[in-house]
């Protein structure tokens, strides 16, 4: 009887401990069997390893199931250059999503919720193989086509004495030469350079310097739309404000304590590598006209696409579409101009 009781007791202990062991391992095995095609993707701050998978393989037309979670802080998941709505990934919680690709190629997935100073490095690739029209290659950025050096110092040669208003500039529209309102001119010329060219025009000699600035502001306004500025603002707020500051002053939370950007030292050879692996500086103050008014849209687009050499400015080429970049650039200029009738903010 004693032996029977002891045996029963042993059986119970082993049984209960076995249940304790089976729950985690069995559970894992079961879920592995049920959904073999699910990719479990862990999001972590780049300091903690970044995405658990750098590259994900997929096939054209076949749904890609992703089981995504975060191991530390709030992250986001979305695909670059797509209108895939961004998913919020909360620590410990899982988000399931299914992606289907109809064109082969390399897609970038990235985190779109700021998760530390290295947030922008949190990117990975989905390599989609199979038949279909491959993804169009990105067109060569304009700054390369035009041979513009986007790193050399670009302080504005002249600046307005007070904030120029595009509305008031409208009254001078009929006086402006044709080239002034052409898109190509807008793209490749900085506001300051355009102002200098217009200043040299005898037909505009009667306009004061400030009047001329307002004409240039109006020209800039004509090259964009309300919707584009709104889009640009949304992009700025979620992607740029953390470093560039919510008011564009270059005082974002991520760049505190960094040395001020000096136009003179712009190559990585001049900077001491920081903890993030490359030199970082705080961005210029966009509300100071000498910076933005000295930059052409092509230069700004180039900076956004390629990032800054040795400054810590991320490269957004794989992330933003061309219309998005153009929208962002036109929003950026609003820090220097006053686009009142476009109801910016």
């Amino acid at each position, binding site marked *: 009887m*004693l032996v029977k*009781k*002891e045996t*029963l*007791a*042993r059986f*119970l*202990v082993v049984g*209960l*401990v076995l*249940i*304790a*062991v089976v*729950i*985690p*391992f069995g*559970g*894992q095995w079961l*879920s592995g069997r049920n959904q073999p095609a699910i990719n479990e993707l862990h999001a972590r701050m780049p300091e903690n390893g970044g995405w658990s998978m750098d590259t994900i393989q997929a096939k054209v037309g076949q749904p890609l199931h992703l*089981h995504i*979670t*975060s*191991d*530390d802080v709030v992250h986001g998941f979305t695909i670059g250059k797509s209108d895939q709505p961004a998913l919020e990934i909360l*620590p*410990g*919680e*899982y988000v399931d999503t299914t992606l289907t690709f109809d064109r082969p190629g390399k897609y970038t997935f990235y985190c779109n919720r700021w998760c530390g100073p290295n947030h922008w490095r949190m990117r990975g690739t989905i390599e989609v193989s199979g038949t279909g029209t491959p993804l169009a290659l990105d067109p060569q950025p304009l700054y390369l086509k035009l041979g513009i050096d986007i790193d050399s110092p670009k302080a504005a040669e002249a600046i307005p004495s007070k904030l120029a208003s595009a509305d008031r500039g409208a009254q001078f529209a009929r006086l402006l030469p044709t080239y002034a309102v052409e898109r190509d001119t807008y793209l490749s010329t900085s506001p300051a350079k355009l102002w200098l060219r217009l200043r040299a025009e005898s037909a505009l000699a009667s306009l004061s310097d400030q009047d001329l600035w307002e004409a240039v502001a109006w020209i800039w306004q004509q090259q964009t739309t309300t919707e584009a500025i709104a889009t640009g603002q949304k992009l700025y707020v979620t992607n740029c404000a953390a470093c560039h500051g919510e008011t564009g002053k270059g005082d974002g939370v991520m760049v505190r304590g960094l040395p001020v950007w000096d136009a003179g030292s712009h190559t990585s050879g001049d900077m001491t590598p920081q903890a993030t692996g490359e030199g970082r500086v705080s961005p210029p103050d966009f509300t100071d006209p000498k910076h933005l008014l000295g930059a052409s849209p092509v230069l700004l687009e180039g900076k956004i696409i390629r990032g800054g050499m040795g400054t810590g400015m991320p490269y957004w080429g794989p992330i933003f579409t061309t219309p998005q970049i153009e929208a962002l650039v036109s929003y950026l200029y609003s820090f220097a101009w006053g686009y009142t009738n476009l109801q910016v903010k």
Partner: protein
Amino acid sequence: MTRLDLTCFPWAKTLLRSRWPQFLLRAITLAGFVFTILAGLFGSVVGSHNFAIIFVWIAWWTALKLFFIPFGGRSWCSICPIPMPGEWLQHGGILQPRGKGIGLDRRWPHFLKGSWLQAGGFLLVGLFGAVTLTSASVTAVVLLAIIVLALVLSLVFERRSFCNYLCPIGGFTGLYAQAGPVEVRVKDADVCAGHSEKTCYSACPWGQYPLALKSSANCGLCMECLRVCPTDNIAVNLRPWGSDLGPKTKHRLDEAFLGLVMLASALVDSAVFLGPWGQLKSAAYAIGSLPWLLFAGVFLVAALGVLPGLYAAAAWAAGRLGPSKTTLQNALAHYSQVLVPLGLMAWIAFTISFAFTKFSYVLAVVSDPLGWGWNLIGMSGTAWVGQATSFSLLLQIVLLAVGLFWASRVARRITESARPAMPLIAFSGIFSLGMLWLLIG
């Protein structure tokens, strides 16, 4: 005598004598322990979604501080899984001792006896607490190390040496069990006088002799003595709180040390975990860094210097103010009883302060214990940030007031007159004020 012997009730007697209820509970806690370790090692790294963190530091800790100790003394120890594998090997049987156990059965070295190691262990837990409490894998490793250590010690030393002299939880559980409402004692001493074999002593895993048992600090309520006593002479009494504290009770210096370590830990843990000082928390977390060394230094100075210093001053003054002169060592040991209710209530208040806000995590983690996205009971993802309600705040100040009242009462009882009690009451008041300010201020 104000004792209610539970063995007077036939159903209680059967329940306590039978090995099965206690065994089943132990088997369940052992399985739970194993599961906790596995969850900590293989489950989510996000602490709020891991069974190990939520259950060890919130659910079990709250149960221990709010129920097991205040209402059952050392009752957790009777179902604790940690010593079980070792004890089963020692006994050669799981359900009951069968005499063919393995183990060297050595005596615990005399100089290591007492609560010194337990106090030191608790200090160690406190120094590394910020990381342990927030990292599931560290929690799991600590639990694994403890159960392995207990097992190894059981194979070398006799009985429950780990529980008696090393386990940090056992240390304060035993200390506060002196104030607890449960005790195991003999019913009639004369019956024991006529019984020379002392079966109870041989059976006791804690090395206690029921006839000589004056304090519940080292009795783990395992009921072995109850089961083997041939004359049914063991009583399990419900008794008033604080019964092991009094003018005639014996106390030792190591109890004073443990009591003081517990008080200091309550203050430091309240400051680190519940205070608004982020730099302190980061310092406590960054183990090995200079800020952490500073934090550790301050912690140790508080636990080994400030609080003992204040207490020693109070004990010395109390000794001087009393009519009969006593040595400082005796005073330190004897008056340490005051630290028992003071610490017990302070830890209950502290536990309420953090546990009440975090309780929503318990059911959520039962639903998804490993943080793998399961939803076993439909409660996954239901945890919320929680807040301190005015009820919980009121409760905390009432508990601290009760602790101060109780400590003052004990001080008054163990000194011959009111005057020598005053320094001890002053010390208790200063401590209570500190806790009050940290929790409520």
